[in-house]
């Protein structure tokens, strides 16, 4: 009998507990004009390391300026996209979240238009198009922006007698061979952290821009309207497979992690990396004297020119159904202040996403952006020309291609099938 009485008490406690769980979590907010802001917001970011710390520091400063508010910064790191997908499916988004390059494709249905924000007109027009929806509504505050090119270790190239800029893909291939030969195989011409899977797609994605979208006769339209000839991807992937076969990548390409790439770059064991400017910051943490350089991506065709890749990097939007929109707007306005943008961009050598009256020093990249100021910029290939969701296949099949598990034809066929499936699902 004692057991039964105990069971009743426990069952009652469980019911009360379950009921209690569903009743909490409401936030208070006074949005009367003229009164101080009050309430709490959640901010989710894909940033890690120094950038995540800066976001936390700036948020703390914002809370000091607004004593009635509290903010929780969540930085789940590599799991960020998965966390956000679960939140999107449950329609339970954070008040503010990073869109990491996908504002206009993946997150557009969840974002509040920000046209009325005071900094909305301070974004350069071609870049603004990339972070606006089809009706021209600005979707996010871009703290910084990508301007990706080919990042190299200057000392390694000098040591191996390679002169930059490498204007064509042939020049680039010749440089890779020269590095391999001159270093006697000691230096990896290119370092890719395939153990993390996603870096394997970087070289395909970045070189696809000059291969398919920058020349006068390009495939932009065909890629967008679904008429792209995927046989071209066969030739393209065979070319990159050729680089693998010739030993132009690090020997641990399938198991190396991102930190290994940074270390190899920092210690002069790798010449080129495909991660944009952020790898230099990571490398400098290992070797402050690392001498990094940057050039635009080489052209694939004789009549074409080099190019940069441009797109959003660290950008924040507001969930359109948030109950704390005023608070969220206040936070964005705070982040858009010149000194805050400067602090963030200088931590990663990235260009600012908005124009401010506070000059930003982008470190090693400054001289190269000045030198190549006239070089055209194009949107990042997969974000602009492939349906959302192809990245994983691009990386997995790249590994299978390199290991000889599949042919370049099979890779193209898989890409085509997935492209068509995702287009159909999107419709």
């Amino acid at each position, binding site marked *: 009998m004692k057991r039964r009485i105990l069971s009743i008490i426990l069952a009652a406690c469980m019911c009360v507990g379950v009921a209690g769980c569903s009743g909490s979590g409401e936030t208070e907010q006074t949005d009367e004009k003229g009164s101080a802001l009050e309430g709490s917001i959640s901010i989710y970011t894909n940033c890690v390391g120094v950038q995540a710390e800066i976001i936390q520091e700036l948020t703390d400063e914002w809370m000091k300026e607004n004593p009635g508010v509290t903010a929780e910064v969540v930085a789940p790191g590599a799991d960020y996209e998965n966390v956000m997908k679960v939140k999107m499916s449950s329609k339970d988004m954070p008040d503010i979240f990073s869109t990491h390059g996908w504002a206009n494709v993946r997150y557009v249905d969840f974002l509040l238009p920000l046209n009325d924000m005071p900094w909305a007109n301070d974004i350069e027009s071609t870049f603004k198009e990339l972070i606006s929806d089809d009706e021209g509504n600005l979707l996010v505050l871009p703290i910084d922006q990508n301007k990706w090119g080919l990042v190299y270790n200057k000392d390694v190239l000098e040591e191996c007698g390679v002169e930059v800029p490498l204007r064509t893909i042939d020049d680039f291939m010749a440089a890779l061979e020269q590095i391999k030969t001159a270093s006697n195989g000691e230096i990896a011409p290119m370092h890719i952290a395939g153990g993390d899977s996603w870096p394997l797609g970087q070289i395909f994605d970045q070189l696809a821009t000059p291969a398919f979208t920058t020349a006068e006769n390009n495939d932009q339209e065909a890629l967008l309207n679904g008429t792209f000839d995927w046989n071209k991807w066969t030739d393209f992937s065979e070319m990159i497979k050729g680089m693998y076969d010739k030993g132009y990548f690090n020997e641990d390409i399938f198991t190396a992690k991102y930190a290994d790439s940074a270390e190899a770059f920092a210690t002069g064991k790798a010449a080129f990396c495909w991660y944009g400017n952020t790898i230099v910051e990571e490398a400098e943490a290992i070797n402050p004297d690392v001498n990094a350089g940057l050039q635009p991506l080489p052209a694939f065709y004789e009549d074409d020119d080099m190019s940069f890749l441009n797109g959003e990097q660290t950008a924040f939007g507001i969930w359109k159904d948030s109950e704390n929109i005023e608070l969220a707007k206040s936070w964005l306005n705070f982040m858009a202040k010149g000194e805050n943008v400067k602090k963030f961009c200088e931590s990663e050598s990235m260009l600012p996403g908005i124009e401010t009256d506070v000059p930003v020093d982008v470190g090693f990249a400054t001289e190269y952006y000045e030198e190549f100021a006239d070089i055209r910029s194009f949107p990042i290939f997969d974000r602009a020309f492939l349906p959302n969701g192809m990245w994983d296949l691009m990386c997995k099949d790249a590994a299978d291609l390199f290991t000889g*598990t599949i042919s370049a034809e099979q890779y193209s066929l898989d890409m085509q099938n997935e492209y068509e499936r995702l287009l159909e699902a999107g419709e």
Partner: protein
Amino acid sequence: MKIQPKALLPCIPGFERGMLMRLKKMLNSKGIVNIMYIPVILLFVSFIIYPLIKGIGISMTNWNGYSDASTYIGLENYRKMFADRNFFLIIKNTLIYGIGSAVLENVVGLLYAVLLDKKSKAVGFARTAIYLPVIVAPLIMGYIWYFMFEPIGGAVNDILIAMGLESVDLLTKGTTTVWIITFINSYQYVGIAMMIYLAGLQTIPADYQEAAKIDGASSFQNFVYVKIPLLLPSITVNVVTNLIGSLKLFDIIVAMTNGGPGYSTQSLSTMMYQLYFGKQDAGYAAAMGIFMFCSIAVISVAVLLWFRKREVDA
């Protein structure tokens, strides 16, 4: 135990004897026992039955995992799964992870249990050392072994090089890598198997073994014909739980190879995860999940029934 109304009555002001009797009757009724099942049934329906039914529904759509839009496509995802060129490789890997781990954990676990079925300080230390990996999170265990096996700077390769041998990238060797992961999974959980076998061995009455000895049985015969049959309940528990756990192996694979290179070390669990989050093909991921659920259920029940038929009472 019966409630003593007289003892309780003075404690509750205004509580009448009739009410107490009714309460007593109610608490002793079958109805109240059935009410106790409600929380468990609610939890089971909420977290097992509902997701399962929902999963079956999703597996028949082309849902991308987060948008509002999805279209009913019938059994297309199941057709796609069986036509997928990587599917049978993934099945093979999953079976190696599952059956390989179950066999290794049970054989080694039983061996450890037999060797350590004694009372001494050294034995206690050995049991603790074998059980210790169980308390490490599997993801951490995967990373520890990743650092052992990584081709540049990994301990295994450093040893090979020190011995004058060529270094080997053991994490990119397809089926060999699958077996390495299976070994690591077994290493981590062999302690649980050992503990269950130790408990089983200690419940075997000494009379049976003495009787066998008197009849002239050798130690080996004693083990095979006396101990093993009486250990069958422990074997059943161990094999079935190891099999279920290893067939859905996930963390160690993610830490060591993330299923790669390509799809070479993928299991059904890791593939399902990558289909959902990577390829944004939640319908296909759900179809694979349903297939995995049914496969594990069929294999587990079959193994359970097979062992149960052979169990004997001590």
